[in-house]
């Protein structure tokens, strides 16, 4: 028998960055395995993080597979385990097992222009992808990020977004007008419609709250994107992460193992069970 699939490996928190404060805080955790082992994964894959004594939670890996020194997770404080994670400090030990899931089909996207449309914490699963494509810049066409949050205070990776603007097109938005905000005001879907990205030789990936995903997909369809050109990620409650415990399924698909990345062409064929 090989490795015990349920056994997490101890990992140290190297650095914690507060992305968003308030009642729905987001923090970014950089971690590395205590034994120094490498962890190879694909963009869009997830890992099961353990806070011992509290439990496990499936989180998308927000670092790029090109960064070999650490694994990064951006986490919204939402329940028992994520609250415990938010209370941790650099140097603390968590458990990690994975990587899980299918990841983005980057091979198929070579040579295409890519639109990333994210909302709120939904930028986290896209973040590794953004950096991976930037890292292999010559493999892809123009890259565009459309990202929005409720307010400017809710924008994740704030500082890095400014840097990003030097490397690719970035359109930001906030839901309602606020003083000092010079970019788009409105929902992400409206911003997408406003910027009119061309579907020509394009791939669009959208990630965020369910209502945002729904509206962005509609906007993309209005802009003549085909179902097969649109990708999104799905989340469901998970425990095992390996398609055995039986709770995250959408039809025959276990999101943990067969997802979380789906093209809209695939997803629309599956029952609405997420």
């Amino acid at each position: 028998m090989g490795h015990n699939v349920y056994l997490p490996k101890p990992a140290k928190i190297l650095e914690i960055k507060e992305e968003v404060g308030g009642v729905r805080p987001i923090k970014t955790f950089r971690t590395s395995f205590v034994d120094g082992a490498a962890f190879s994964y694909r963009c869009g894959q997830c890992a099961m993080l353990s806070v011992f004594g509290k439990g496990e939670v499936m989180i998308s890996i927000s670092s790029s597979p090109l960064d070999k020194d650490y694994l990064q997770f951006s986490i919204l404080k939402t329940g028992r385990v994520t609250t415990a994670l938010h209370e941790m400090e650099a140097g603390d030990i968590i458990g990690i097992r994975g990587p899980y899931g299918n990841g983005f089909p980057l091979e198929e996207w070579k040579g295409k222009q890519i639109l990333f449309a994210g909302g709120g914490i939904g930028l986290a699963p896209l973040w590794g992808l953004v950096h991976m494509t930037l890292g292999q810049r010559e493999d892809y066409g123009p890259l565009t990020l459309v990202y929005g949050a409720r307010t400017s205070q809710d924008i994740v990776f704030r500082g890095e977004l400014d840097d990003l603007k030097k490397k690719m097109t970035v359109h930001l938005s906030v839901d309602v007008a606020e003083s000092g905000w010079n970019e788009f005001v409105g929902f992400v879907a409206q911003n997408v419609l406003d910027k009119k990205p061309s579907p020509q030789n394009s791939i669009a990936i959208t990630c965020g709250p369910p209502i945002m995903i729904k509206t962005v997909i509609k906007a993309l369809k209005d802009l003549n994107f085909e179902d097969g050109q649109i990708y999104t990620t799905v989340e469901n409650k998970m425990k095992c992460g390996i398609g055995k415990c039986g709770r995250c399924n959408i039809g025959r698909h276990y999101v943990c193992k067969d997802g979380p990345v789906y093209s809209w062409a695939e997803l629309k064929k599956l029952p609405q069970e997420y």
Partner: protein
Amino acid sequence: MDKILAKKDYSRWLEKLGSYRIFAPRKRDDVWNYEMVTAPDAERLEDVMTAVPAKGIVFPQREPFFEFAETDDGTRITEILPEGEPVVVFGVRPCEGRAVTLTDDVFGGEFEDHYYWKRRNATTLVGLSCGAPPSPNCFCLSVGGSPHSKEGLDLLLTDLGKTYYAEALTKKGEKLVLEGQKLFTAPGPEDRKAVDKIQAASRKKIRRELSRIENVPAKLRGMFDSPFWDDESMSCIRCGICTYLCPTCHCFDMADEVETSTPLLGKRVRTWDTCQFPDFTMHSSGHNPRPDKASRLRQRINHKFQYFVEVWQKYQCTGCGRCISLCPVGIDIIQVVEKVRDHGA
């Protein structure tokens, strides 16, 4: 390897299996369940259906995965694998043997489940072919099984009145026969004939049938949003009987059981879980993709008669009838599936 064992020698055989932990159905408070055999001389095999199926032996309701402890040297994680001591289960129904082949599929594959396989590999399943249906709700024939199916079993016993006809089906089964050595004799041609006769007769004794279900998977695909599920689930009380006691259901939960919090000491533990409990799929946000009884009944039926078929090309139901017999409100999977079959016809 086919052999004959005189019934009077059955308990002597069990006595020779000292290196095994032996389980067999035992009746307590009017309920049959697999229990550890402590007095082999009192052993009898009967056509009974236990409440908890044999899956509980290879996939126990509670399985500690590892211990976590905060020590001076940091967090220590200690794997707790089952010891894998040899176990033999007597009186396994052929439908339960088939069910184990389905949990084998689930717990195998790319992510092999060490806990399951440690127990499974150490377990010898001794089936008892059903002379009479052990439950009025048996319907194994309808889902590809039979009262004398050999799938998943290591040894199959058939009751010939004064003797058992023993068919060793695997190396593990042969080993068990060898342990009993001289107690077993070679069968005569009349013995095999007797077995065939009993088996043919037992098929006819099965009263319940779920016929013409080839199109059910396709039917179910089209019925996801049907109000049918609301009607069918009206009487469901959302307990876990149908799934916990199903020999093929494998869903589980994982939780940290903390013994002391300072310093931290505890275990991560797997327990059975069920799609019939509302908290099974509920997100931390409170959003629940399967928020009502209708969607949960649909999940149970779809999993068994559509999703599992799509992934493994077989039904995730071996027709033991437990979910029918034990449902407090009489929800009958045969009738539900028949209605699906005839839906819109």
